[in-house]
Protein backbone atom coordinates (compact mmCIF):
# COMPACT_ATOMS: atom_id res chain seq x y z
CA UNK A 1 0.00 0.00 0.00
CA UNK A 2 2.74 2.42 0.91
CA UNK A 3 4.65 1.54 -2.24
CA UNK A 4 1.64 2.08 -4.45
CA UNK A 5 1.03 5.48 -2.86
CA UNK A 6 4.61 6.57 -3.29
CA UNK A 7 4.70 5.84 -7.02
CA UNK A 8 1.41 7.55 -7.79
CA UNK A 9 2.36 10.58 -5.76
CA UNK A 10 5.66 10.96 -7.63
CA UNK A 11 3.97 10.90 -10.99
CA UNK A 12 1.36 13.44 -9.96
CA UNK A 13 4.08 15.51 -8.32
CA UNK A 14 5.78 16.03 -11.70
CA UNK A 15 2.47 16.51 -13.45
CA UNK A 16 1.43 19.39 -11.18
CA UNK A 17 1.37 22.86 -12.58
CA UNK A 18 3.05 25.39 -10.33
CA UNK A 19 1.84 28.95 -10.04
CA UNK A 20 4.08 31.80 -11.18
CA UNK A 21 4.33 33.18 -7.64
CA UNK A 22 5.55 29.81 -6.42
CA UNK A 23 8.24 29.65 -9.10
CA UNK A 24 9.49 33.17 -8.38
CA UNK A 25 9.56 32.39 -4.64
CA UNK A 26 11.52 29.19 -5.31
CA UNK A 27 14.02 31.12 -7.45
CA UNK A 28 14.58 33.69 -4.69
CA UNK A 29 15.21 30.89 -2.17
CA UNK A 30 17.57 29.15 -4.63
CA UNK A 31 19.45 32.41 -5.21
CA UNK A 32 19.99 33.01 -1.48
CA UNK A 33 21.10 29.40 -1.02
CA UNK A 34 23.68 29.80 -3.79
CA UNK A 35 24.85 33.09 -2.28
CA UNK A 36 25.17 31.40 1.13
CA UNK A 37 27.38 28.68 -0.37
CA UNK A 38 29.44 30.86 -2.71
CA UNK A 39 29.66 34.06 -0.62
CA UNK A 40 33.42 33.93 0.12
CA UNK A 41 34.22 33.65 -3.61
CA UNK A 42 31.91 36.33 -4.97
CA UNK A 43 32.19 39.19 -2.47
CA UNK A 44 33.87 42.20 -4.11
CA UNK A 45 35.63 43.41 -0.94
CA UNK A 46 36.77 41.69 2.23
CA UNK A 47 34.04 42.19 4.85
CA UNK A 48 36.43 43.84 7.30
CA UNK A 49 38.02 46.31 4.83
CA UNK A 50 37.13 49.94 5.13
CA UNK A 51 36.65 50.99 1.52
CA UNK A 52 34.74 54.25 1.85
CA UNK A 53 35.91 57.51 3.45
CA UNK A 54 32.33 58.29 4.31
CA UNK A 55 30.13 56.26 6.64
CA UNK A 56 26.56 55.32 5.66
CA UNK A 57 27.54 56.11 2.08
CA UNK A 58 24.86 56.03 -0.61
CA UNK A 59 24.60 53.44 -3.38
CA UNK A 60 27.05 54.14 -6.19
CA UNK A 61 29.26 52.40 -8.69
CA UNK A 62 31.70 50.05 -7.00
CA UNK A 63 29.75 50.17 -3.73
CA UNK A 64 26.44 48.95 -5.05
CA UNK A 65 24.70 48.91 -1.69
CA UNK A 66 26.57 51.81 -0.10
CA UNK A 67 28.77 51.56 2.95
CA UNK A 68 28.06 50.78 6.59
CA UNK A 69 28.68 52.70 9.81
CA UNK A 70 32.44 52.21 9.49
CA UNK A 71 32.61 52.68 5.73
CA UNK A 72 32.77 48.97 4.90
CA UNK A 73 31.23 47.58 1.72
CA UNK A 74 27.61 46.75 2.44
CA UNK A 75 27.14 44.39 -0.53
CA UNK A 76 29.92 42.09 0.70
CA UNK A 77 28.57 42.16 4.23
CA UNK A 78 25.02 41.30 3.16
CA UNK A 79 26.27 38.46 0.94
CA UNK A 80 28.35 37.05 3.79
CA UNK A 81 25.45 37.62 6.18
CA UNK A 82 23.36 35.25 4.04
CA UNK A 83 25.82 32.54 4.96
CA UNK A 84 25.12 32.91 8.69
CA UNK A 85 21.39 33.61 8.51
CA UNK A 86 20.63 30.79 6.07
CA UNK A 87 23.24 28.37 7.42
CA UNK A 88 22.44 28.66 11.12
CA UNK A 89 18.68 28.60 10.49
CA UNK A 90 18.92 25.59 8.20
CA UNK A 91 21.04 23.64 10.69
CA UNK A 92 18.64 24.46 13.56
CA UNK A 93 15.50 23.65 11.62
CA UNK A 94 17.02 20.34 10.51
CA UNK A 95 17.80 19.36 14.10
CA UNK A 96 14.44 20.62 15.39
CA UNK A 97 12.35 18.87 12.76
CA UNK A 98 14.32 15.63 12.84
CA UNK A 99 14.11 15.33 16.65
CA UNK A 100 10.55 16.59 16.84
CA UNK A 101 9.22 14.34 14.08
CA UNK A 102 11.01 11.22 15.33
CA UNK A 103 9.81 11.82 18.91
CA UNK A 104 6.30 12.56 17.67
CA UNK A 105 6.11 9.35 15.66
CA UNK A 106 7.51 7.28 18.53
CA UNK A 107 4.97 8.83 20.93
CA UNK A 108 2.10 8.14 18.55
CA UNK A 109 3.14 4.53 17.90
CA UNK A 110 4.05 3.67 21.49
CA UNK A 111 1.27 5.53 23.27
CA UNK A 112 0.82 5.05 27.02
CA UNK A 113 2.84 6.85 29.63
CA UNK A 114 5.69 7.72 27.26
CA UNK A 115 3.25 9.61 25.05
CA UNK A 116 1.63 11.37 28.02
CA UNK A 117 4.94 12.40 29.63
CA UNK A 118 6.50 13.61 26.36
CA UNK A 119 3.37 15.51 25.34
CA UNK A 120 2.95 17.21 28.72
CA UNK A 121 6.60 18.18 28.94
CA UNK A 122 6.87 19.48 25.38
CA UNK A 123 3.54 21.32 25.68
CA UNK A 124 4.94 23.07 28.73
CA UNK A 125 8.06 24.01 26.74
CA UNK A 126 5.76 25.30 24.04
CA UNK A 127 4.17 27.64 26.58
CA UNK A 128 7.34 29.67 26.93
CA UNK A 129 7.27 32.57 24.50
CA UNK A 130 10.03 31.81 21.97
CA UNK A 131 11.73 35.19 22.16
CA UNK A 132 11.84 35.06 25.96
CA UNK A 133 13.17 31.50 25.86
CA UNK A 134 15.85 32.53 23.38
CA UNK A 135 16.80 35.56 25.46
CA UNK A 136 17.32 33.55 28.66
CA UNK A 137 19.02 30.54 27.09
CA UNK A 138 21.37 32.53 24.88
CA UNK A 139 22.33 34.63 27.88
CA UNK A 140 23.06 31.40 29.77
CA UNK A 141 24.97 29.36 27.19
CA UNK A 142 26.45 32.16 25.11
CA UNK A 143 26.16 33.14 21.47
CA UNK A 144 28.71 30.92 19.75
CA UNK A 145 27.41 29.46 16.48
CA UNK A 146 26.92 25.88 17.83
CA UNK A 147 25.16 27.25 20.94
CA UNK A 148 22.85 29.38 18.79
CA UNK A 149 22.01 26.45 16.51
CA UNK A 150 21.17 24.21 19.46
CA UNK A 151 19.17 26.89 21.29
CA UNK A 152 17.05 27.66 18.24
CA UNK A 153 16.56 23.94 17.60
CA UNK A 154 15.45 23.23 21.18
CA UNK A 155 12.95 26.11 21.05
CA UNK A 156 11.25 24.67 17.96
CA UNK A 157 11.34 20.93 18.79
CA UNK A 158 7.99 21.07 20.71
CA UNK A 159 6.15 22.56 17.74
CA UNK A 160 7.55 19.99 15.30
CA UNK A 161 6.71 17.23 17.79
CA UNK A 162 3.14 18.36 18.18
CA UNK A 163 2.60 18.62 14.44
CA UNK A 164 4.12 15.21 13.63
CA UNK A 165 2.35 13.49 16.51
CA UNK A 166 -1.05 14.78 15.44
CA UNK A 167 -0.46 13.42 11.92
CA UNK A 168 1.02 10.13 13.12
CA UNK A 169 -1.85 9.44 15.52
CA UNK A 170 -4.23 9.43 12.54
CA UNK A 171 -2.05 7.06 10.53
CA UNK A 172 -1.64 4.86 13.60
CA UNK A 173 -5.35 3.93 13.53
CA UNK A 174 -5.15 2.61 9.94
CA UNK A 175 -5.54 -1.07 9.16
CA UNK A 176 -2.10 -1.45 7.67
CA UNK A 177 -0.61 -0.37 11.00
CA UNK A 178 -2.54 -3.12 12.79
CA UNK A 179 -1.35 -5.60 10.18
CA UNK A 180 2.26 -4.50 10.61
CA UNK A 181 1.93 -4.79 14.40
CA UNK A 182 0.48 -8.28 14.09
CA UNK A 183 3.41 -9.21 11.84
CA UNK A 184 5.56 -8.27 14.82
CA UNK A 185 7.43 -5.36 13.22
CA UNK A 186 9.75 -3.27 15.41
CA UNK A 187 9.02 0.35 16.36
CA UNK A 188 11.86 1.49 14.09
CA UNK A 189 10.24 -0.27 11.13
CA UNK A 190 6.80 1.07 12.05
CA UNK A 191 7.85 4.70 12.16
CA UNK A 192 10.35 4.51 9.31
CA UNK A 193 8.46 2.43 6.77
CA UNK A 194 4.79 2.79 7.64
CA UNK A 195 4.25 6.20 9.24
CA UNK A 196 6.94 8.44 7.75
CA UNK A 197 6.10 7.85 4.06
CA UNK A 198 2.51 8.82 4.82
CA UNK A 199 3.24 12.07 6.62
CA UNK A 200 6.39 13.22 4.84
CA UNK A 201 4.77 15.85 2.62
CA UNK A 202 2.99 17.89 5.30
CA UNK A 203 6.08 17.47 7.47
CA UNK A 204 8.19 19.06 4.72
CA UNK A 205 5.77 21.99 4.46
CA UNK A 206 6.02 22.36 8.24
CA UNK A 207 9.81 22.30 7.87
CA UNK A 208 9.55 25.38 5.66
CA UNK A 209 7.30 27.26 8.07
CA UNK A 210 9.55 26.45 11.00
CA UNK A 211 12.54 27.65 8.96
CA UNK A 212 10.81 31.04 8.67
CA UNK A 213 10.17 31.16 12.44
CA UNK A 214 13.82 30.37 13.12
CA UNK A 215 15.11 33.00 10.67
CA UNK A 216 12.84 35.56 12.37
CA UNK A 217 13.91 34.56 15.89
CA UNK A 218 17.61 34.48 14.98
CA UNK A 219 17.33 37.92 13.38
CA UNK A 220 15.42 39.19 16.42
CA UNK A 221 18.07 37.90 18.83
CA UNK A 222 20.90 39.30 16.71
CA UNK A 223 19.05 42.58 16.55
CA UNK A 224 18.91 42.66 20.36
CA UNK A 225 22.68 42.01 20.38
CA UNK A 226 22.30 38.49 21.79
CA UNK A 227 22.72 36.57 18.54
CA UNK A 228 25.84 36.37 16.42
CA UNK A 229 28.66 38.41 17.92
CA UNK A 230 31.02 40.75 16.04
CA UNK A 231 33.08 40.44 13.88
CA UNK A 232 30.61 37.88 12.49
CA UNK A 233 27.34 39.42 11.38
CA UNK A 234 24.11 37.90 10.14
CA UNK A 235 21.32 40.03 8.68
CA UNK A 236 19.79 40.85 12.07
CA UNK A 237 23.18 41.96 13.41
CA UNK A 238 23.73 44.09 10.28
CA UNK A 239 20.48 45.96 10.99
CA UNK A 240 21.53 46.42 14.61
CA UNK A 241 25.00 47.80 13.90
CA UNK A 242 23.71 50.18 11.26
CA UNK A 243 20.59 51.33 13.09
CA UNK A 244 22.28 54.73 13.49
CA UNK A 245 21.79 55.24 9.77
CA UNK A 246 18.02 55.12 10.15
CA UNK A 247 17.52 58.90 10.39
CA UNK A 248 19.27 59.30 7.00
CA UNK A 249 17.44 56.28 5.54
CA UNK A 250 20.86 54.75 4.77
CA UNK A 251 20.83 51.66 2.53
CA UNK A 252 23.00 49.98 5.19
CA UNK A 253 20.00 49.60 7.49
CA UNK A 254 17.34 49.00 4.84
CA UNK A 255 19.09 46.38 2.69
CA UNK A 256 19.63 43.70 5.37
CA UNK A 257 15.99 44.12 6.44
CA UNK A 258 14.88 43.62 2.85
CA UNK A 259 17.13 40.56 2.58
CA UNK A 260 15.40 38.94 5.58
CA UNK A 261 11.98 39.86 4.22
CA UNK A 262 12.75 38.50 0.73
CA UNK A 263 13.81 35.16 2.19
CA UNK A 264 10.97 34.69 4.69
CA UNK A 265 8.22 35.97 2.39
CA UNK A 266 9.50 33.71 -0.41
CA UNK A 267 9.40 30.61 1.79
CA UNK A 268 5.86 31.48 2.96
CA UNK A 269 4.68 32.11 -0.60
CA UNK A 270 6.30 28.92 -1.86
CA UNK A 271 4.49 26.88 0.79
CA UNK A 272 1.20 28.66 0.10
CA UNK A 273 1.54 27.95 -3.62
CA UNK A 274 2.56 24.32 -3.35
CA UNK A 275 0.06 22.02 -5.06
CA UNK A 276 -2.72 21.18 -2.62
CA UNK A 277 -1.71 17.55 -2.53
CA UNK A 278 1.76 18.21 -1.17
CA UNK A 279 0.68 20.84 1.31
CA UNK A 280 -2.36 19.26 2.90
CA UNK A 281 -2.26 17.60 6.27
CA UNK A 282 -4.25 14.59 5.14
CA UNK A 283 -2.22 14.06 1.99
Amino acid at each position, binding site marked *: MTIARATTSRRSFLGHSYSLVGIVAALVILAWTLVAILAPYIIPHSIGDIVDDDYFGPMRQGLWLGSDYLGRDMLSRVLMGARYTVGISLASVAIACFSGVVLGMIAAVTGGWLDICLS*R*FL*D*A*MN*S*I*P*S*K*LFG*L*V*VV*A*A*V*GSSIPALILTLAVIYIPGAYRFARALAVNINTMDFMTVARVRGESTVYLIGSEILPNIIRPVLADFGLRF*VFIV*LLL*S*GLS*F*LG*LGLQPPLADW*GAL*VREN*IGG*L*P*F*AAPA*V*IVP*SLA*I*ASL*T*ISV*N*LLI*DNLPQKIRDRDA
Partner: protein
Amino acid sequence: MTSGVLNLVLKRLGIAAVTLLIVLFAVFFATSMLPGDTASILLGQAATPEAVAGLREAMHLNDPAILRFLRWLLGLLHGDLGTSYANQMPVAALIGGRFVNTMELAGITTLLSVPLALTLGITAAMLRGSLYDRTVTVVSIGVISVPEFMVATLAVLLFAVYLKWLPALSSVNEAHTLTDLVRIYAMPVITLTFVISAQMIRMTRAAVIETLSTPYVEMALLKGASRGRMVLRHALPNALGPIVNAVALSLSYLVGGVIIVETIFNYPGIAKLMVDAVATRDLPLIQSCAMIFCLGYLLLITAADVVAIMSNPRLR
Protein backbone atom coordinates in the same frame (compact mmCIF):
# COMPACT_ATOMS: atom_id res chain seq x y z
CA MET B 1 -23.40 25.01 31.55
CA THR B 2 -23.00 21.44 32.69
CA SER B 3 -20.41 19.91 34.94
CA GLY B 4 -18.69 18.48 31.84
CA VAL B 5 -17.62 21.90 30.63
CA LEU B 6 -16.69 22.95 34.15
CA ASN B 7 -14.48 19.89 34.45
CA LEU B 8 -12.78 20.60 31.13
CA VAL B 9 -12.18 24.22 32.09
CA LEU B 10 -10.84 23.27 35.53
CA LYS B 11 -8.60 20.68 33.93
CA ARG B 12 -7.28 23.31 31.52
CA LEU B 13 -6.57 25.68 34.42
CA GLY B 14 -4.80 22.86 36.27
CA ILE B 15 -2.61 22.19 33.23
CA ALA B 16 -1.81 25.90 33.06
CA ALA B 17 -0.73 25.92 36.71
CA VAL B 18 1.52 22.86 36.23
CA THR B 19 2.94 24.41 33.08
CA LEU B 20 3.74 27.61 34.94
CA LEU B 21 5.64 25.61 37.56
CA ILE B 22 7.67 23.79 34.88
CA VAL B 23 8.37 27.07 33.14
CA LEU B 24 9.52 28.74 36.36
CA PHE B 25 11.78 25.77 37.02
CA ALA B 26 13.22 25.96 33.49
CA VAL B 27 13.80 29.71 33.76
CA PHE B 28 15.46 29.29 37.15
CA PHE B 29 17.87 26.68 35.86
CA ALA B 30 18.63 28.53 32.65
CA THR B 31 19.45 31.66 34.62
CA SER B 32 21.54 29.82 37.18
CA MET B 33 23.62 28.58 34.22
CA LEU B 34 24.44 32.17 33.28
CA PRO B 35 28.21 32.48 32.92
CA GLY B 36 30.30 34.12 35.60
CA ASP B 37 30.13 34.02 39.37
CA THR B 38 27.62 36.55 40.67
CA ALA B 39 29.56 37.22 43.87
CA SER B 40 32.80 38.07 42.09
CA ILE B 41 30.94 40.18 39.53
CA LEU B 42 29.31 42.18 42.33
CA LEU B 43 32.54 42.76 44.24
CA GLY B 44 34.63 43.63 41.21
CA GLN B 45 38.17 42.60 40.32
CA ALA B 46 39.87 43.91 43.44
CA ALA B 47 37.91 41.67 45.82
CA THR B 48 39.82 39.22 48.01
CA PRO B 49 38.88 35.52 47.76
CA GLU B 50 37.69 35.66 51.38
CA ALA B 51 35.27 38.49 50.61
CA VAL B 52 33.89 36.63 47.59
CA ALA B 53 33.44 33.46 49.66
CA GLY B 54 31.70 35.47 52.39
CA LEU B 55 29.31 37.07 49.96
CA ARG B 56 28.56 33.71 48.33
CA GLU B 57 27.70 32.39 51.78
CA ALA B 58 25.53 35.40 52.61
CA MET B 59 23.64 35.13 49.30
CA HIS B 60 23.13 31.37 49.73
CA LEU B 61 24.89 30.81 46.40
CA ASN B 62 26.55 27.64 47.70
CA ASP B 63 23.25 25.88 48.35
CA PRO B 64 22.06 23.31 45.80
CA ALA B 65 20.03 24.84 42.99
CA ILE B 66 16.84 23.00 43.96
CA LEU B 67 16.98 24.53 47.45
CA ARG B 68 17.44 28.01 46.04
CA PHE B 69 14.56 27.39 43.66
CA LEU B 70 12.23 26.36 46.51
CA ARG B 71 13.32 29.35 48.59
CA TRP B 72 12.64 31.66 45.65
CA LEU B 73 9.22 30.05 45.09
CA LEU B 74 8.37 30.45 48.79
CA GLY B 75 9.32 34.11 48.57
CA LEU B 76 7.05 34.51 45.55
CA LEU B 77 4.10 33.20 47.54
CA HIS B 78 4.76 35.92 50.10
CA GLY B 79 4.93 38.49 47.34
CA ASP B 80 8.69 38.83 47.79
CA LEU B 81 10.38 38.93 44.38
CA GLY B 82 13.88 39.12 45.85
CA THR B 83 16.57 41.76 45.65
CA SER B 84 18.28 42.85 42.46
CA TYR B 85 21.96 41.87 42.39
CA ALA B 86 22.99 44.85 40.34
CA ASN B 87 21.78 47.74 42.48
CA GLN B 88 20.49 46.14 45.68
CA MET B 89 16.96 47.43 45.14
CA PRO B 90 13.94 45.20 45.78
CA VAL B 91 12.90 43.68 42.45
CA ALA B 92 9.27 44.60 43.12
CA ALA B 93 10.21 48.29 43.29
CA LEU B 94 12.19 48.08 40.03
CA ILE B 95 9.38 46.33 38.21
CA GLY B 96 6.40 48.27 39.64
CA GLY B 97 6.36 51.43 37.54
CA ARG B 98 7.71 49.74 34.44
CA PHE B 99 5.03 47.07 34.64
CA VAL B 100 2.40 49.80 34.45
CA ASN B 101 4.16 51.27 31.40
CA THR B 102 4.20 47.92 29.61
CA MET B 103 0.56 47.26 30.47
CA GLU B 104 -0.36 50.70 29.10
CA LEU B 105 1.43 49.90 25.87
CA ALA B 106 -0.24 46.50 25.63
CA GLY B 107 -3.65 47.93 26.59
CA ILE B 108 -3.63 50.74 24.04
CA THR B 109 -2.42 48.31 21.36
CA THR B 110 -5.23 45.89 22.20
CA LEU B 111 -7.88 48.64 22.11
CA LEU B 112 -6.66 49.71 18.68
CA SER B 113 -5.87 46.39 17.05
CA VAL B 114 -8.90 44.30 18.06
CA PRO B 115 -11.58 46.45 16.34
CA LEU B 116 -9.27 47.11 13.40
CA ALA B 117 -8.37 43.46 12.87
CA LEU B 118 -11.91 42.15 13.36
CA THR B 119 -13.32 44.64 10.86
CA LEU B 120 -10.66 43.83 8.28
CA GLY B 121 -10.80 40.08 8.91
CA ILE B 122 -14.59 39.78 8.73
CA THR B 123 -15.00 42.05 5.70
CA ALA B 124 -12.18 40.22 3.90
CA ALA B 125 -13.95 36.91 4.58
CA MET B 126 -17.27 38.35 3.31
CA LEU B 127 -15.67 39.59 0.09
CA ARG B 128 -13.56 36.48 -0.31
CA GLY B 129 -11.57 36.41 -3.53
CA SER B 130 -12.05 40.13 -4.28
CA LEU B 131 -9.19 42.54 -4.82
CA TYR B 132 -9.82 43.92 -1.32
CA ASP B 133 -9.55 40.45 0.22
CA ARG B 134 -6.37 39.67 -1.69
CA THR B 135 -4.77 42.99 -0.68
CA VAL B 136 -5.58 42.43 3.00
CA THR B 137 -4.27 38.85 2.82
CA VAL B 138 -1.03 39.74 1.06
CA VAL B 139 -0.28 42.65 3.41
CA SER B 140 -0.95 40.54 6.50
CA ILE B 141 1.22 37.67 5.20
CA GLY B 142 3.92 40.25 4.52
CA VAL B 143 3.78 41.67 8.04
CA ILE B 144 3.82 38.18 9.61
CA SER B 145 6.78 37.13 7.47
CA VAL B 146 9.13 39.92 8.50
CA PRO B 147 10.80 40.45 11.88
CA GLU B 148 9.13 42.92 14.29
CA PHE B 149 12.16 45.17 14.18
CA MET B 150 11.68 45.62 10.46
CA VAL B 151 8.09 46.78 10.96
CA ALA B 152 9.43 49.18 13.59
CA THR B 153 12.22 50.36 11.28
CA LEU B 154 9.81 51.01 8.43
CA ALA B 155 7.44 52.85 10.79
CA VAL B 156 10.31 55.10 11.93
CA LEU B 157 11.36 55.72 8.32
CA LEU B 158 7.84 56.62 7.28
CA PHE B 159 6.54 58.66 10.23
CA ALA B 160 9.68 60.09 11.78
CA VAL B 161 12.14 60.44 8.87
CA TYR B 162 10.03 61.21 5.80
CA LEU B 163 6.86 62.70 7.28
CA LYS B 164 8.52 64.04 10.45
CA TRP B 165 5.22 63.68 12.36
CA LEU B 166 6.55 61.76 15.34
CA PRO B 167 9.73 61.42 17.37
CA ALA B 168 11.60 58.14 16.94
CA LEU B 169 12.22 57.51 20.65
CA SER B 170 9.91 57.29 23.65
CA SER B 171 10.37 58.86 27.04
CA VAL B 172 7.30 58.49 29.18
CA ASN B 173 8.55 60.94 31.82
CA GLU B 174 8.38 63.87 29.44
CA ALA B 175 4.66 63.56 28.90
CA HIS B 176 2.87 66.68 30.09
CA THR B 177 0.07 67.29 27.65
CA LEU B 178 -2.21 65.05 25.65
CA THR B 179 -0.33 65.74 22.41
CA ASP B 180 2.92 64.74 24.12
CA LEU B 181 1.32 61.52 25.20
CA VAL B 182 0.09 60.71 21.70
CA ARG B 183 3.50 61.47 20.21
CA ILE B 184 5.28 59.22 22.73
CA TYR B 185 3.04 56.21 22.44
CA ALA B 186 2.44 56.53 18.71
CA MET B 187 5.49 54.73 17.28
CA PRO B 188 5.54 51.72 19.65
CA VAL B 189 1.76 51.35 19.42
CA ILE B 190 1.73 51.60 15.61
CA THR B 191 4.43 48.93 15.34
CA LEU B 192 2.76 46.55 17.79
CA THR B 193 -0.66 47.10 16.24
CA PHE B 194 0.69 46.08 12.85
CA VAL B 195 2.28 42.91 14.24
CA ILE B 196 -0.73 41.84 16.33
CA SER B 197 -3.39 42.80 13.79
CA ALA B 198 -1.77 40.82 10.99
CA GLN B 199 -2.09 37.61 13.03
CA MET B 200 -5.61 38.44 14.13
CA ILE B 201 -6.82 39.30 10.63
CA ARG B 202 -5.62 35.98 9.25
CA MET B 203 -7.18 33.92 12.04
CA THR B 204 -10.48 35.86 12.03
CA ARG B 205 -10.76 35.58 8.27
CA ALA B 206 -10.15 31.81 8.43
CA ALA B 207 -12.73 31.39 11.23
CA VAL B 208 -15.44 33.32 9.37
CA ILE B 209 -14.72 31.55 6.07
CA GLU B 210 -15.05 28.21 7.80
CA THR B 211 -18.45 29.16 9.22
CA LEU B 212 -19.57 30.53 5.86
CA SER B 213 -19.01 27.12 4.30
CA THR B 214 -21.35 25.33 6.74
CA PRO B 215 -24.71 23.89 5.55
CA TYR B 216 -26.89 26.29 7.57
CA VAL B 217 -25.27 29.34 5.98
CA GLU B 218 -25.84 27.80 2.59
CA MET B 219 -29.45 27.26 3.63
CA ALA B 220 -29.76 30.94 4.53
CA LEU B 221 -28.35 31.82 1.11
CA LEU B 222 -30.84 29.51 -0.61
CA LYS B 223 -33.70 31.07 1.36
CA GLY B 224 -32.69 34.36 -0.22
CA ALA B 225 -31.09 36.12 2.72
CA SER B 226 -28.90 39.08 1.75
CA ARG B 227 -25.16 38.73 2.01
CA GLY B 228 -24.95 41.07 4.99
CA ARG B 229 -27.77 39.31 6.83
CA MET B 230 -26.24 35.94 6.06
CA VAL B 231 -22.93 36.95 7.65
CA LEU B 232 -24.20 39.05 10.56
CA ARG B 233 -27.22 37.01 11.55
CA HIS B 234 -26.25 33.43 10.66
CA ALA B 235 -22.50 33.11 10.46
CA LEU B 236 -21.08 35.59 13.00
CA PRO B 237 -22.84 34.35 16.17
CA ASN B 238 -21.46 30.90 15.47
CA ALA B 239 -18.00 32.14 14.54
CA LEU B 240 -17.79 34.13 17.79
CA GLY B 241 -16.01 31.38 19.71
CA PRO B 242 -13.27 30.86 17.12
CA ILE B 243 -12.90 34.64 16.74
CA VAL B 244 -12.42 35.25 20.48
CA ASN B 245 -10.01 32.34 20.45
CA ALA B 246 -8.11 34.01 17.61
CA VAL B 247 -8.04 37.34 19.45
CA ALA B 248 -6.59 35.79 22.62
CA LEU B 249 -4.00 33.81 20.66
CA SER B 250 -2.96 36.87 18.66
CA LEU B 251 -2.62 38.94 21.81
CA SER B 252 -0.10 36.40 23.09
CA TYR B 253 2.19 37.67 20.30
CA LEU B 254 2.35 40.89 22.30
CA VAL B 255 4.82 39.15 24.61
CA GLY B 256 7.39 38.68 21.85
CA GLY B 257 6.51 41.99 20.26
CA VAL B 258 7.10 44.20 23.28
CA ILE B 259 10.60 42.79 23.79
CA ILE B 260 11.68 44.12 20.39
CA VAL B 261 9.53 47.25 20.41
CA GLU B 262 10.58 48.43 23.88
CA THR B 263 14.23 47.91 22.98
CA ILE B 264 14.11 49.68 19.63
CA PHE B 265 12.11 52.66 20.90
CA ASN B 266 13.85 52.78 24.27
CA TYR B 267 10.48 52.51 25.98
CA PRO B 268 10.79 52.13 29.78
CA GLY B 269 8.84 48.88 30.27
CA ILE B 270 9.65 45.50 31.79
CA ALA B 271 10.83 44.00 28.50
CA LYS B 272 13.56 46.64 28.27
CA LEU B 273 14.31 46.02 31.94
CA MET B 274 14.72 42.32 31.24
CA VAL B 275 16.99 42.77 28.23
CA ASP B 276 19.17 45.04 30.39
CA ALA B 277 19.06 42.49 33.23
CA VAL B 278 20.30 39.77 30.87
CA ALA B 279 23.24 42.00 30.01
CA THR B 280 24.15 42.53 33.70
CA ARG B 281 23.34 38.91 34.70
CA ASP B 282 20.90 40.11 37.33
CA LEU B 283 19.27 36.75 38.13
CA PRO B 284 16.39 37.74 40.44
CA LEU B 285 15.37 40.46 38.02
CA ILE B 286 15.51 38.13 34.98
CA GLN B 287 13.52 35.47 36.81
CA SER B 288 10.80 37.87 37.88
CA CYS B 289 10.48 39.47 34.45
CA ALA B 290 10.41 36.08 32.74
CA MET B 291 7.77 34.95 35.22
CA ILE B 292 5.55 37.94 34.47
CA PHE B 293 5.83 37.37 30.72
CA CYS B 294 5.14 33.65 30.98
CA LEU B 295 2.20 34.31 33.28
CA GLY B 296 0.68 36.79 30.84
CA TYR B 297 1.28 34.45 27.92
CA LEU B 298 -0.21 31.45 29.73
CA LEU B 299 -3.25 33.48 30.82
CA LEU B 300 -3.94 34.45 27.22
CA ILE B 301 -3.51 31.00 25.69
CA THR B 302 -5.50 29.40 28.52
CA ALA B 303 -8.26 31.97 27.98
CA ALA B 304 -8.22 31.07 24.28
CA ASP B 305 -8.58 27.37 25.12
CA VAL B 306 -11.37 27.96 27.62
CA VAL B 307 -13.31 30.06 25.12
CA ALA B 308 -12.86 27.32 22.52
CA ILE B 309 -14.21 24.73 24.98
CA MET B 310 -17.17 26.91 26.03
CA SER B 311 -18.14 27.80 22.46
CA ASN B 312 -18.25 24.19 21.31
CA PRO B 313 -21.93 23.15 21.45
CA ARG B 314 -20.96 19.49 21.53
CA LEU B 315 -19.29 20.03 24.90
CA ARG B 316 -21.91 22.34 26.33
